[in-house]
């Protein structure tokens, strides 16, 4: 009924949209906010990106990011061990936050993006779980903070580099690649297109 109409999310202007081709972007005439961003080959690209992200999750979360050697004692840290160490310091709230922002939210995002695209491929997008998953994805979307964590790694490296011998481990590479996969979901997944393919009616 209202397929041709769209309201800007930032200024509520009603916009009449004719068909938009893949790769084109529509902006609000009043506040210039991006209203629709049609993405190229969204499903296949999202599948590729989320599958590689899922493969990288285990090494990114559990493999040591870097290790430190001081007086011939060596210790290393991973994202997971950071959470555990905070928990051990009795900072339960902070440990939970780091867990949610850096492990749980990105993983859940990848899993739901993967399942949504798979569901789309196998034509199961009229099923209830598919809709639930899209709603769920919308809610976890903005809670992932991997890029902040990466800069956090950089800051801690610089803070420690005068104090001890630091070496970088394979986990750092995996973490950076994992972060890129999660970030590129923003570029590949076209939520609007997926929603518009859903029938609705009362």
């Amino acid at each position, binding site marked *: 009924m209202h397929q041709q109409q769209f*309201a800007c999310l930032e200024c509520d202007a009603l916009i009449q949209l004719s068909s938009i081709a893949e790769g084109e972007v529509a902006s609000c005439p009043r506040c210039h906010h991006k209203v629709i961003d049609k993405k190229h080959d969204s499903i296949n690209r999202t599948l590729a990106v989320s599958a590689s992200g899922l493969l990288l999750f285990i090494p990114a979360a559990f493999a040591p990011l870097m290790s430190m050697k001081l007086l011939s004692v060596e210790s290393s840290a991973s994202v997971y061990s950071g959470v555990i160490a905070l928990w051990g310091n009795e900072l339960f709230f902070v440990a939970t936050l780091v867990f949610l922002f850096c492990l749980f939210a990105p993983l859940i995002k990848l899993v739901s993006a993967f399942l949504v695209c798979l569901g789309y491929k196998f034509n199961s997008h009229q099923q209830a779980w598919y809709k639930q998953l899209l709603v769920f994805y919308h809610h976890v979307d903005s809670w992932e903070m991997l890029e902040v964590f990466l800069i956090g790694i950089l800051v801690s490296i610089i803070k420690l580099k005068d104090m001890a011998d630091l070496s970088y481990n394979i986990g750092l590479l995996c973490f950076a690649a994992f972060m890129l996969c999660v970030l590129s979901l923003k570029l590949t997944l076209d939520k609007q297109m997926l929603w518009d393919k*859903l029938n609705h009616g009362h």
Partner: protein
Amino acid sequence: MDTNVEAIITAKEKGLAQCPVCHLLVEIDNAKDNYCPRCDSKVYLRINDSIQRCWAWTICSLIAFIPANAFPIMTILYFGKGQPDTILSGIVLLLKFGMYPIAAIVFIASFVVPLAKIVGLFFLLYSLKNTSKLSKHQRTKMYRYIEIFGRWSMLDVFVVALLVALVEIGAVVEIVAGPGATAFGVMVILTIFAANSFDPRLLWDRETSNSMEQER
């Protein structure tokens, strides 16, 4: 793409509202709660009590900002002894060692960003009720930046997590996290809630209800 630029009608004037989740335009019946027929999310013309809620969250964040900076976030212990560091004293320490770029990054991410976010939201809330020197475009842009950069204030918390995990070498050196980290985490979450409860469409609402005040 063809859009009608001349006469802008808002969805609200037509009795329509966009579903916040799936972006379907839904007709609003003011007498009852409205739900999106496509994704079953609750749909509303404007975020309910947006201004009040945003004031409340922002004031809470301002209050939480104080312990976040007053309490130590971590202590470096050499042979069991050490002085606790707050965020600001940590930055001073970095400056002392001549690490200026990293000191600037930490200062911006964990002090300037949250403060600017709080002050910015206060400004936006104030500007809704009073006239403002900034145009609606500038204020919308400001809100967009507040939303985007808010997450960066988690930086210091992540650094603490890594340092605590990494530096645990027997009795020689140990880094212990302090209560400031919790206060800081609380503050960041509060500012995120504050930014989310602000409805940018309110910035534009007055323009249509009061055409005397057209800008541009």
